[in-house]
């Protein structure tokens, strides 16, 4: 009887061990301290705009639009003192990797460039002070809480539950994503497209029909406002790629996964690698030029959509009067020859199994 009991206990322990997901070792304490310092520096009026209940539905109102055009959660950096801004920036830095923080800064700089150089006439505030920071829940070592940093072309959502973190859903976008400043070429969200272009160019004639959609894809499908939706995967599956191509696919995924702090990103990449055989890659558009195509990476626990916009490209209003078939006067919008604008891109990153930490939140309550 004892032997059987011990054997059963051993089997149960092995089974339970297999069920436990490895926890990323993100520095929860660092993020918690940074968020507490930020909230502690706000006056009561500011606090009501910066802090929300963890489950407040306003969390899902992150958007690609500037905050002046679409309301959302958070206190604007423009409404903070320089010292408070430093503390707000420290919150962001505490939940992102140096790579992710640099990417965020590059998106803000592109927005500043757009406002200062490209735009004529009125509009909306641009640059780093035009973004909103919100803390959902109480920064804690065990209870769920989250950081949202949101504004034009950027929506970062990091949910923290104990030692676990997730960066999803997150929007990265830029316009312009390639520009000259002080004699230097600044590139934002273009290197990512380069990784995907490398993958599509590596595909054989047999693989290409599986991976490349014949149709134009006009926008991403699961951007802001599409929480909880899952599209049917399409494209070529990781299991149908060579080992080298699978590495390229992982390289594309890493461009978004690595935005979050390094420990969390490492754990997430391990998860993506484990399911790479079931991860699909879809391409729609030009396979020869950088940034003129939509692409999608979709696996059991990851979605990336990268979508150049048609606005301001040939065929848009600014180019009316262009040649036939370009959507100019008398042309039609639904013209397969309409070009995408490689300098204006939107991308969304999701985790179908864990957007907003849904996987952990129930267990933590």
């Amino acid at each position, binding site marked *: 009887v004892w032997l059987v009991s011990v054997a059963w206990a051993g089997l149960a322990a092995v089974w339970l061990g297999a069920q436990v997901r490895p926890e990323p070792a993100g520095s929860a304490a660092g993020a918690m301290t940074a968020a507490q310092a930020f909230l502690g520096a706000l006056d009561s009026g500011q606090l009501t705009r910066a802090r929300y209940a963890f489950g407040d539905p306003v969390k899902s109102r992150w958007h690609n639009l500037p905050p002046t055009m679409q309301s959302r959660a958070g206190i604007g950096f423009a409404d903070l003192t320089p010292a408070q801004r430093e503390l707000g920036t420290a919150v962001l830095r505490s939940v992102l990797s140096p790579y992710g923080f640099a990417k965020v800064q590059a998106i803000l700089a592109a927005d500043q460039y*757009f406002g200062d150089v490209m735009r004529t006439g009125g509009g909306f505030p641009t640059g780093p002070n035009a973004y909103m920071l919100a803390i959902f829940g109480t920064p804690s070592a065990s209870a769920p809480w989250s950081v949202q940093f949101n504004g034009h072309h950027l929506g970062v959502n990091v949910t923290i539950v104990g030692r676990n973190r997730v960066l999803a859903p997150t929007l990265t976008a830029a316009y312009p994503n390639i520009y000259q400043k002080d004699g230097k070429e600044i590139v934002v969200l273009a290197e990512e497209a380069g990784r995907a272009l490398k993958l599509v160019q590596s595909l054989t004639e047999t693989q290409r029909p599986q991976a490349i959609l014949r*149709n134009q*894809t*006009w926008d991403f499908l699961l951007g802001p406002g599409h929480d909880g939706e899952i599209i*049917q995967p*399409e494209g070529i599956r990781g299991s149908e790629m060579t080992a080298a191509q699978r590495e390229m696919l992982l390289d594309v995924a890493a461009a978004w996964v690595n935005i979050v702090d390094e420990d969390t990103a490492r754990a997430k990449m391990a998860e993506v690698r484990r399911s790479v055989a079931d991860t699909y890659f879809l391409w729609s558009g030009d396979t020869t030029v950088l940034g003129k195509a939509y692409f999608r990476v979709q696996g059991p626990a990851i979605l990336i959509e990268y979508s150049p916009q048609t*606005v301001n490209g040939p065929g848009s209003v600014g180019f009316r009067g262009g040649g036939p078939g370009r959507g100019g006067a008398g042309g039609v919008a*639904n013209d397969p020859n309409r070009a995408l604008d490689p300098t204006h891109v939107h991308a969304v990153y999701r985790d179908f199994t864990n957007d907003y930490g849904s996987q952990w939140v129930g267990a933590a309550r």
Partner: protein
Amino acid sequence: MRFRRALAVLALTGMPLASSVSAHRVDEYLQAAQVSIDRNRVALDVYLTPGTATVSAVVAAIDRSGDGHVSADEAHAYASAVVGRLSLVLDGTPIPIVLQTYDYPSAEALAAGVGSIRVRAAGLVERMAEGEHLLVLHNGFWTPESVYLANAMLPRDSAVAILGQERDGPQTRLAIRYRLDGVVPSWFGTPRGVWLTLGAVSIALVGLWYRRTITTTVRRREAC
């Protein structure tokens, strides 16, 4: 109603609010259709997003009276018009589509070229047989500025498996091949289902054993 007031402003001013934004959809009217299939129902979601240069025409099409206000009837009529131009054909047989709900975005989002009108409809089907099926969606809600997307959603019903999607060039037509497997109770395969199944099997075995024992006992008595 805030939306009505703001739409009125857009309709009356001709709407070029966001031309200075230069940041989002401009001269297109994006119609993104999503098709969700389960064993006895097809759900359709159409997201209609007018670009900044097309929104005034869209608003005019909604505000049929031209009074600068979108009444509930006008909002319903526009959604009905969208659904009226959709068709679904399942295995060669047209199936009726009914409008279920619709939502209109804030006028500011609409004006900026990112606000979507969401129209939800349902295709009414009899209980489908097991095996392969072909469902064809056609979106005939045409305007000169329209561009289209059409996609199947990942089925929530584990009995349904999408086998392939075929689109025409403009994506006004989407053909979805899918397979409906044997329909099993939703709890089957879950831990609860495993325990219930084990329990049922155990009870059945005990029942069989009891019946056999009784039968044997009766036979012995008869033999005696």
